[in-house]
């Protein structure tokens, strides 16, 4: 088989690999999130109204919890009472029956939408419910007519019956936008020891178009658990002292932080697909579960929790409670990502455009490594000049003999030493730049600061992939160009080694293919870095040629 035929086979093989990977690995993985799995239990299929889902007969609390997840059902339409303003651009709906509706963030927009649609967090429907029939009846009677005090800034609803009185209030925090206090007060109800009161949510998780990026995380008894991906479809129950619970996507979250004297248990599980929940979203139910039994000697007890709906912004969360910063997940290499984010933000105070800041960062990194690059290049040239001598040494020794091979190595080393080749070289300076790449990847993939950060022209969101794949194609081309002229990267022509040119080119194409889904800011960094590298290469080649001419002339 001649070499051109073989090259065609290699390229066809790589294309086939990409196609098979897309078809067999990526497509099923994505499909898994497009479609919620079928419920394993049959109890969920009965469309009973939510008010009667709780079991009437007292059971152990754990058993009730399992039932309440399984018995989750399609939302019943209830009327909006009032929309509470929590900060200038944030509002959350209060619905009849001690429930919260949609939380809207008017200062952020849905990505990829044709029109500017404000981000809506699905607190849909976050409602109080109870296994005690008389408490549930009181909760149901909380409607428009029971509003005791209602304004865009505070809602208080009261209802009372012969068995007891209930009170539900939603009050925004005056200092922090997106933070509301949700409080339920019960007075005088006679309840069994096994009765529970739940703050329950049955809705989709997050609004991210990449559904696999949605997650639930919580801190119980000082240990943080994060559940994402396919694990969300399994049911879990957690008990203990709850610090916080958050659910949402990478950028937006709803955070619960109990503030009262009662600490809830938590359980969550996936729902069967119900009407109104789109296919691509992960429908998840969870409940903060309290005991409905008041403390001894008391008839009145209240459940209070802070609900935060907004961005996963460390500075905002730190102002509310330093502990809530833990809800921000910057990915696997969070510390590096934080460092990169910090430097990007520092640069952005000058440029006011994250795209320009990324370019500036690239130039700074390249400039910092320039002295090293120069030295390394000169030693590469020296190495090339030594090549004939190396060959001579290699041929001198019989390679089948191990002792001879050692002698040969020593001679090669001596040759290197006399010519002082590559004193500073090595792969460490190269590896040192890997954290920059990883950190940028983490920051661009997870940070709200870079959400919808525009660059110019067609790139309106640096944290999303390039919609027209212009940057990945340019990067691939620059990578191929770089490989062509960079002798170190190719490193071919060694005895016993094949000519890797075609395989390498195929690999560059494969990298280009992989980069199509990377955030465009990351590809921008790689592209600029590569272009600067090409320029440096040309400059060094020219200057070394001049030097050679001078030597020859002398």
């Amino acid at each position, binding site marked *: 088989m001649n070499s051109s035929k073989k090259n065609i086979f290699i390229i066809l093989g790589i294309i086939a690999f990409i196609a098979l990977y897309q078809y067999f690995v990526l497509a099923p993985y994505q499909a898994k999130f497009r479609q919620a799995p079928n419920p394993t239990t049959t109890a969920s299929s009965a469309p009973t109204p939510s008010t009667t889902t709780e079991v009437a007969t007292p059971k152990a609390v754990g058993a009730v919890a399992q039932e309440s997840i399984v018995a989750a059902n399609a939302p019943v339409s209830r009327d909006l009472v009032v929309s509470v303003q929590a900060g200038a651009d944030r509002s959350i709906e209060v619905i009849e029956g001690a429930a919260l509706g949609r939380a809207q963030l008017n200062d952020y927009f849905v990505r990829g939408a044709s029109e500017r649609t404000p981000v809506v967090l699905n607190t849909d429907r976050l409602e109080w419910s109870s296994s005690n029939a008389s408490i549930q009846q009181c909760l149901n009677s909380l409607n428009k007519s029971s509003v005791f005090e209602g304004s865009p800034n505070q809602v208080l609803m009261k209802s009372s019956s012969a068995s007891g009185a209930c009170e539900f209030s939603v009050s925004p925090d005056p200092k922090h936008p997106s933070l509301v206090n949700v409080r339920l007060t019960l007075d005088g109800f006679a309840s069994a020891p096994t009765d529970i009161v739940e703050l329950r949510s049955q809705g989709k998780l997050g609004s991210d178009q990449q559904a696999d990026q949605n997650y639930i995380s919580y801190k119980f008894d000082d240990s943080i658990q994060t559940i994402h991906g396919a694990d969300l479809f399994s049911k879990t129950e957690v008990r203990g002292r709850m610090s916080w619970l958050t659910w949402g996507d990478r950028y937006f979250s709803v955070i619960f932080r109990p503030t009262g004297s009662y600490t809830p248990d938590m359980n969550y599980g996936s729902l069967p697909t119900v009407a109104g929940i789109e296919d691509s979203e992960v429908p998840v139910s969870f409940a903060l579960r309290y005991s409905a039994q008041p403390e001894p000697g008391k008839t009145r007890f209240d459940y209070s929790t802070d609900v935060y709906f907004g961005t996963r912004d460390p500075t905002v969360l730190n102002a509310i409670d330093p502990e809530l910063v833990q809800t921000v997940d910057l990915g696997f290499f969070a510390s590096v990502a934080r460092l990169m984010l910090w430097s990007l933000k520092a640069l952005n105070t000058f440029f006011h455009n994250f795209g320009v800041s990324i370019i500036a960062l690239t130039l700074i990194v390249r400039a910092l490594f320039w002295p090293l690059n120069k030295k390394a290049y000169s030693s590469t040239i020296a190495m090339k000049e030594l090549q004939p001598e190396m060959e001579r040494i290699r041929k001198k020794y019989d390679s089948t003999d191990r002792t001879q091979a050692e002698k040969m*190595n020593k001679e090669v080393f001596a040759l*290197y030493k006399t010519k002082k080749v590559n004193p500073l070289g*090595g792969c*460490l300076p*190269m590896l040192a730049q890997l954290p920059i790449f990883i950190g940028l990847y983490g920051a661009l993939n997870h940070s709200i600061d870079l959400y919808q950060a525009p660059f110019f022209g067609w790139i309106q969101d640096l944290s999303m992939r390039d919609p027209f794949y212009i940057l990945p194609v340019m990067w691939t081309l620059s*990578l191929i160009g770089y490989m062509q002229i960079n002798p170190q990267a190719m490193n071919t022509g*060694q005895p016993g080694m094949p000519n890797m040119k075609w395989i390498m080119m195929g690999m560059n194409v494969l990298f280009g293919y992989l980069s199509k889904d990377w955030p465009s800011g990351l590809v921008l960094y790689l592209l600029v870095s590569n272009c600067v590298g090409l320029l440096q290469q040309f400059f060094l080649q020219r200057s070394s040629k001049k030097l050679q001419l001078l030597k020859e002339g002398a």
Partner: protein
Amino acid sequence: METHFREAFKKTPLRALAAFAAFSFYKMMIAPLLHSLGGVGMGCRYPQSCSEYASLSILEYGVLSGSVRALNRVCSCNPWTAPKPHLMVVQVKESIS
């Protein structure tokens, strides 16, 4: 290398496979990105690149011994360590190279 590996596959298929995996994994998956990030002139201080060295030494010395040699070489590749004389080149047998 084609002939070299072809010969090796006939004699010790598992060893040759390990060698080829070590070589191609680095050369194909990591090297392009690393060199693109590293900048001009960055790279090997040795006459043979570590991926080549690793694959050839696995062929020559076996999977375990060859891997240890390769690891030793990678670790010695930093500004604070002088290049080690015994890790310079793996000589390929003339008959099959």
